[in-house]
């Protein structure tokens, strides 16, 4: 992993994923380890994302490194028409590591080819967001004690939701059974079903919330109105994919509810007090997994 960019979760092998998760656990039990003292990390947010940026900034500070960069493109030279290539060439002369978020898909892969220093993709449009996937994996492993042989429910927008796609690819290394719960218009794309078939992984598709007693993990996502071509269809399905506390009554003791946040209305607030709700802790895990990824890439751990 040393000196290698992280653009897509599939850049890491199963062994490398497990290594990162182990490092993350170490950072959770001891978060202040200034292993990157003297290093400079460039944080380039070509589009704003307060949540992801704060998580990275916290991780960088806890590792003792310094941050330079910008928080949205309007304050950078890209508004003057500078190409991504030129920005990356310049910044990679200054920094030891680049964290980049960009609205264009594939921008992180391209940046990694132009940069002298490793790039960590903090989201490239609707394409990849590997550090989110890593924190999801960490949350699942931490709450279940393992990543192997789990029954994973994925609910909501399974068509456009990039977190779902990346998580699906990563979990496929651990022999899961998937239950895809989505309206027809938001169902899981065929290419992912082909991928699962080729990997020999079982999956079921259902249009309504049900069979929840089988679940080890319930991964909820936003169903966004603007994704629907027919607004009537949205009105019809919007309440079908809302999780309410009563629905968790007969579920397994080890079940945890995850959500990449921010949520809209897909998890009713009455779930928040249920010990099976894990989405707030999940977000906190992002700091430890990002510390683990950065220290592995910088070769300090």
């Amino acid at each position: 992993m040393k000196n290698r960019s992280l653009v897509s979760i599939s850049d890491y092998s199963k062994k490398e994923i497990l290594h990162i998760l182990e490092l993350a656990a170490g950072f959770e039990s001891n978060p202040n380890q200034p292993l990157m003292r003297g290093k400079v990390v460039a944080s380039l947010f070509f589009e704003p994302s307060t949540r992801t940026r704060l998580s990275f900034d916290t991780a960088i500070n806890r590792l003792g490194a310094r941050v330079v960069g910008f928080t949205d493109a309007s304050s950078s030279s890209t508004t003057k028409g500078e190409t991504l290539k030129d920005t990356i060439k310049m910044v990679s002369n200054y920094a030891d590591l680049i964290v980049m978020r960009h609205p264009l898909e594939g921008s992180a892969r391209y940046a990694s080819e132009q940069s002298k220093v490793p790039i960590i993709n903090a989201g490239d449009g609707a394409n990849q967001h590997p550090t989110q996937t890593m924190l999801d994996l960490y949350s699942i492993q931490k709450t279940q004690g393992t990543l192997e042989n789990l029954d994973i429910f994925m609910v909501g927008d399974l068509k456009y939701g990039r977190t779902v796609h990346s998580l699906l690819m990563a979990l496929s290394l651990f022999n899961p059974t998937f239950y895809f719960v989505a309206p027809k218009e938001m169902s899981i794309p065929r290419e992912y079903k082909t991928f699962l078939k080729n990997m020999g992984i079982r999956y079921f598709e259902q249009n309504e919330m049900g069979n929840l007693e089988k679940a080890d993990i319930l991964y909820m996502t936003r169903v966004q109105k603007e994704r629907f071509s027919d607004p009537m269809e949205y009105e019809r399905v919007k309440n079908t994919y809302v999780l309410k506390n009563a629905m968790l009554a007969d579920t397994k003791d080890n079940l945890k509810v995850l959500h990449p946040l921010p949520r809209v209305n897909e998890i009713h607030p009455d779930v928040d007090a249920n010990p099976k709700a894990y989405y707030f802790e999940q977000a906190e895990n992002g700091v430890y997994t990002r510390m683990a990824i950065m220290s592995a890439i910088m070769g300090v751990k």
Partner: protein
Amino acid sequence: MSKQKQLQVSAIENGTVIDHIPAASLFDVISILGLDHISNLITFGTNLDSHKFDKKAIIKVADKFFERDEINKISLVAPHAKLNIIRDYEVVEKRDVTIPDEVIGIVKCFNPKCVTNNESIITRFKVEDKIDLALKCHYCEKNTTRDELQMM
């Protein structure tokens, strides 16, 4: 061998005849092979009757012998193309084209949000499906299919 076929392939002394091009793809083939930028003698015919398609096109390039990698680029738009290598007015070799494992710099990514459509970048695709044609973009990771295929 029919008289018509004889006429079509025997007109050049040395060079390459590319036969069985779908008529609609003729100009794509010309542009992919850069034939619009070379000084060799080139003749072509189009809207010829064909058993395989509605209408086919044929290109004859004098004194030009293509490398395998070079000619395979046309397989995306002319998968059934046949090459006749001509020396001294004789067909000395016949060749098919095959779809390569990787396609570099010929095809446009169909995804408008792909970085390659917004900055000057040479496109790169892995061919995931050679039969139905699915080209996976090295950058945005989306598949461009036959229906969405557009040349640079």
